[in-house]
């Protein structure tokens, strides 16, 4: 048992640190401080790509460095250390890219992977529907084959960045007479195709992180299909696993940082023991996330497949995020109700983490059934043709 960097890990860290210390201040002097626009994020991303740091965990032949999970984590730590973890094209890097690398045709890889790395393509996902959330496989968007093309009709929702995206990854039903998981196909959709309409959803925090996407007779070339028709669910599983892991391993972006919480507390309550208690509580949660992360990385590094670790991490992050935000708002007292960038913003956003990427309940079911071997919950729709499963809206 060793929590230290090995020699090779130390080398990766030193290299990352050196590159960042040279490159980030230069970029920052031109771009100022956060928050950054999409264009600024794109520009930093291009700088990363120029240094071969665009997606260092991708294979070398597609522009990555072939980093393993531990190396990737070291890179992420170093990036976070200097404040250079600027989110850009999250669906592209966290979901679409890994899926295309795993299941795409060579032509698809050539067409998209470098374009993503170079910051030329922003992606969104077209999975969830008004009637298909946790039960994603019950989605109703239809794809009909028409010669070399597919004609797609349906409505998607909760697509992040869809209003800026160049491409989307789409899950659609091609055969409603198969059981729900078996009748799905997975496509790449050019978001500029006629029939694609994006309507941003205004959210409680005032922003529009998500959009509804309406698909009306959208023509998708068969060459944009990933996997066979019928493999859609399997391919989507890859996508979702990467999504969960990418949420799970990137604490930084989602939670109101403990250090800021402590600052607020210190500036207002110096010695209040109740506040100190609450702070210490949040602090332990933050540290535990760090330990759990290390454990997963260590497992990945040994070539073991994480079972429910993605679910554990996601639950832990969602809880930390809520607790930190709620405590922050409390510490601000009446000022906590004033609109602001601090914990208030996190308060408005914290619920999303318990839902997006699989709800808390789904994550817990995964742990109970897959890790602890509890019997599966009753699923009355199991094995039925999709067309016979809908009893209501």
């Amino acid at each position, binding site marked *: 048992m060793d929590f230290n960097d090995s020699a090779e890990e130390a080398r990766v860290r030193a290299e990352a640190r050196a590159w960042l210390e040279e490159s980030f201040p230069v970029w920052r002097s031109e771009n100022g401080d956060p928050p950054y626009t999409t264009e600024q994020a794109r520009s930093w991303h291009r700088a990363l790509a120029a240094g071969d740091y665009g997606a260092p965990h991708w294979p070398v032949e597609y522009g990555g460095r072939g980093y393993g999970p531990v190396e990737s984590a070291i890179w992420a730590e170093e990036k976070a250390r200097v404040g250079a973890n600027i989110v850009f094209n999250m669906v592209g890097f966290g979901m679409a890219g890994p899926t295309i690398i795993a299941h795409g045709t060579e032509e698809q890889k050539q067409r998209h992977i470098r374009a993503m790395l170079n910051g030329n393509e922003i992606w969104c996902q077209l999975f969830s529907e008004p009637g298909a959330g946790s039960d994603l496989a019950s989605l109703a968007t239809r794809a009909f084959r028409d010669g070399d093309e597919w004609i797609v009709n349906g409505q998607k929702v909760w697509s992040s960045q869809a209003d800026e995206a160049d491409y989307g990854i789409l899950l659609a039903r091609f055969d409603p007479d198969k059981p729900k998981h078996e009748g799905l196909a997975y496509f790449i959709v050019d978001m500029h195709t006629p029939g694609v309409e994006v309507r941003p959803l205004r959210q409680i925090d005032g922003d529009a992180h998500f959009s509804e996407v309406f698909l009306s007779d959208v023509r998708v070339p068969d060459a944009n299909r990933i996997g066979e028709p019928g493999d859609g669910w399997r391919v989507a599983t890859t996508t979702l696993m990467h999504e969960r892991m990418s949420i799970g391993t990137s604490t930084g972006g989602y939670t109101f940082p403990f250090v800021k919480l402590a600052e607020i507390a210190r500036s207002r309550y110096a010695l209040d023991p109740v506040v100190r208690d609450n702070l210490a509580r949040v602090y332990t949660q933050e540290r535990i996330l760090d330990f759990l992360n290390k454990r997963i990385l260590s497992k990945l590094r040994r070539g073991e497949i994480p079972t429910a670790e993605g679910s554990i991490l996601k639950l832990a992050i969602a809880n930390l995020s809520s607790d930190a935000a709620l405590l922050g708002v409390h510490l601000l007292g*009446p000022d906590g109700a004033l609109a602001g960038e601090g914990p208030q913003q996190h308060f408005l956003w914290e619920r999303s983490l318990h839902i997006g990427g699989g709800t808390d309940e789904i994550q817990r079911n995964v742990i109970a059934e897959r890790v602890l071997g509890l019997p599966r919950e009753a699923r009355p729709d199991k094995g039925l043709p999709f067309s016979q499963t809908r009893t209501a809206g």
Partner: protein
Amino acid sequence: MNLALTEEQDAVRGLARQIFDGRLTADRLKEIAATEDAFDRALWEELARANLLGIAVSEEFGGSGHGIIELCLLLEEVGRAVAPVPAFEALVLGALPLSQFGTPEQKTRYLPGVVEGKIILTGALPEDESSVTARRDGAAWVLDGLAFGVPAVHLASAIVVVASNALFLVDVASVSTARNVVTSHELRFDVSFGGVSAELLGEATAIAWLRERGLLGLCAMQTGVAEKALRLTAEYTSSREQFGRPLGSFQAVQQRVADCYIDVEAMRWTMWQAAWRVSEGFEATEEVLIAKFWASEAGQRVLSAAMHLHGGIGVDVSYPLHRYTLWAKQIELTLGGAAAQLEKLGDVMATCD
């Protein structure tokens, strides 16, 4: 002992609910939220016509002369409807202390207008000490300093202000204000009293008197907010299907919704217990603290669960739930959150042994 509402109380609730339900569609709420004042004046006028604005104002000034219980019933409905009207500000922070402590002249100046919906009042009631100071200038009083986060100042004619441990009445025209936006998209104002003249309403006991009623009013609104959020959640989970059955038939959903129901019941009955004691003139310090503690902490729990069980739609501003979340947080943080109430309750328990 009989905790049922009287027929008259039942009628007040029914009338208020009918007005709010009739007017405040989701679209109307969005429309009002987009206006500069964020105030539904037509609704306010309808409340006046129904004489609901005069519910706790004596008949002498056109009101119906009821008490704090009936006022809480109205405020519960305001919360239930997340209604964009300054009922709490005008009727609790403004009209109550005027009715109790005002001179006949002061009452005549304001109360009939309040009842008719033509005059709006508000109050600058801090959680603890006031940052406004008062000094005598001959027979008159002069206020200095800044009050933070005062609601409804843009609509109000006069402000009831806590300054130097007494309660004053100030004409809004004489102060200068800076506008803030709170997370609930409502407006709060920093009000600057640069040597403005004020009328004395009451001494320190008047502040405690008002704070008690302010806390009660918040608890009543919070009960309405949480109860309606829970009902929306029950409806939503009963109709939405996942995995071939309604969400609401999943045990984890049922468990959480049931806990919310218990929380709401606790909020409701701590509030009524406190309101009843206040209305009877009994000592109610402890009961009010318990009610606000519960309104704050359980309010947060219920709204958190409601948001969660709604999934993505909970944060979508075209669905009303997000307004309940924002109101609940706002109410929670006003006049002290759960931690502050617990601390004070600890003081009470420690001192009276």
